[in-house]
């Protein structure tokens, strides 16, 4: 099936969603997604950040769709024409969506452990406006400990349901879910029951915001002071392939490896995540790929040579000349 997204045509098999097709083209057209997760079935459709405009439904029916559609839940049709970043209407609508997501989200990024790798932070930076128009009291909850390793900060939750689906699909028994409705919805465990499963820690990785955080890493370091490396160990429960976050020689945190779309490549078990915090436990493969615009790559100076080349290029374009070469 041929589908055109932002003027780029791609051939995809039947049953592919617009979001997946856009991701196949690349990040220049892929809409942001807060709730959709490739590895979790039935995820997506809650957050509405991935909305796109369909200007032509299909070759058979070339009428446009009346409203923006959620690209994670809409399958492509042959001859479909989609606009994402090229449509000012969509950019405006997405800005509204971001504003709604941020209505109840607290401005506690300086305290939050997710800051620096938070998808909502990125989304707000890219699409939101700098000011808020909301003047009422934000919804607030008490912090809850889910087991002794996970902290649930419900105030920060954007109700993407990713963690609920992870618990449902990755672990064998779900103990937490969403209770209440609408604005009062809340992620909760049955009377704060301990999630006691080998893979329960993965809810931390799938959370796009800082609602579910690792208690063993709580307030230990800001992510941009740590150095992520890919590492592995022999584990009988999971693949053992992880990302180890180092501060000096100390392992401050262990997470699963994430791909370009910030989705976990392979889920890891709790013993890898919490119990192996020594450098000697791990075989280090090398530095993890971090986007150069990410704050995590700040002050690491890996790309100093690249930077030099860039500066030289800019200077050349502006007509600068080194002092010693001036005529």
């Amino acid at each position: 099936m041929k589908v055109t997204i932002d003027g780029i045509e791609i051939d995809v098999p039947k049953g592919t969603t617009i979001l997946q097709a856009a991701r196949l083209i690349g990040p220049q057209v892929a809409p942001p997604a807060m709730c959709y997760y490739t590895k979790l079935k039935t995820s997506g459709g809650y957050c509405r950040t991935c909305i796109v405009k369909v200007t032509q439904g299909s070759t058979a029916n070339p009428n446009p769709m009346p409203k923006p559609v959620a690209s994670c839940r809409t399958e492509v049709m042959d001859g479909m024409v989609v606009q994402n970043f090229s449509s000012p209407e969509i950019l405006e609508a997405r800005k509204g969506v971001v504003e709604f997501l941020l209505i109840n989200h607290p401005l506690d990024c300086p305290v939050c452990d997710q800051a620096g790798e938070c998808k909502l932070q990125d989304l707000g930076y890219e699409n939101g406006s700098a000011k808020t128009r909301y003047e009422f009291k934000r919804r607030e909850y008490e912090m809850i400990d889910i087991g002794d390793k996970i902290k649930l900060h419900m105030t920060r939750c954007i109700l993407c349901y990713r963690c609920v689906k992870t618990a449902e699909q990755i672990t064998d028994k779900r103990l937490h879910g969403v209770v209440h409705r609408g604005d009062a919805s809340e992620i909760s465990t049955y009377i704060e029951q301990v999630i006691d499963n080998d893979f329960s820690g993965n809810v931390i990785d799938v959370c796009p915001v800082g609602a579910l955080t690792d208690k063993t890493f709580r307030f230990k370091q800001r992510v941009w002071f740590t150095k992520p490396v890919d590492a592995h160990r022999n584990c009988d429960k999971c693949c053992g392939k992880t990302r180890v976050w180092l501060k000096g020689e100390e392992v401050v945190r262990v997470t699963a490896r994430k791909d370009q779309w910030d989705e976990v490549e392979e889920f890891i078990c709790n013993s890898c995540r919490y119990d192996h915090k020594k450098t000697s436990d791990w075989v280090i493969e090398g530095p993890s790929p971090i986007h150069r615009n990410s704050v995590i790559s700040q002050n690491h100076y890996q790309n100093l040579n690249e930077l030099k080349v860039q500066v030289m290029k800019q200077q050349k374009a502006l007509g600068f000349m080194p002092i010693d070469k001036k005529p």
Partner: protein
Amino acid sequence: MKLTNRSKVVSDNKEQTGMEKLYLPGIIKGMLITGSHLFKRRATVRYPEETRPMAGVYRGWHVLKRDENGAERCTACGLCAVACPAEAITMESAERKKGEESLYREEKYAKTYEINMLRCIFCGLCEEACPKEAIFLTDRLVDTEYEREDFVYGKSKLVEKIDKRIDVSKRQTLEVAEFKKLPGLKHNEVWEGKNLNKGNKH
């Protein structure tokens, strides 16, 4: 050894002229120049009795501010350290315990906070980066010390004393003050000692 050919011989057993041989005119000329300075503006001040005025926005010894209740504003977010071009700032954070609400403003606080004053270039980027209005540069000069490690200032030298607050209002322009009155910027509730919008969060 002669290194270059550029050196010029100024006087090499030069014969003195008649005027120079008289000696006295030269002395008088010199005394007149010296005497004229008695009536000119003095170039120095009588330090330490007298000091030169300092700019209100002079960037010197940092201060870590407390809020209106005396709680430390710094939440150890690390933005100053990542903004610092000289990498002079290091910190360790800790979680606030129950009963420490009057000591620390937020749930997280800086357990240690160190600035290496020998590394610091006093550019003020930390002040600019701070989202909590915690760090400011002041017009105090950094003391001289005998040991290098004495220049690493910890919290004891950086956090302002409760009974000896440091005024930083001069450092904030009118535009900044106006901007901080926005209701969305809740962490800036206090401006010049006045509570702009009551009702505390956290």
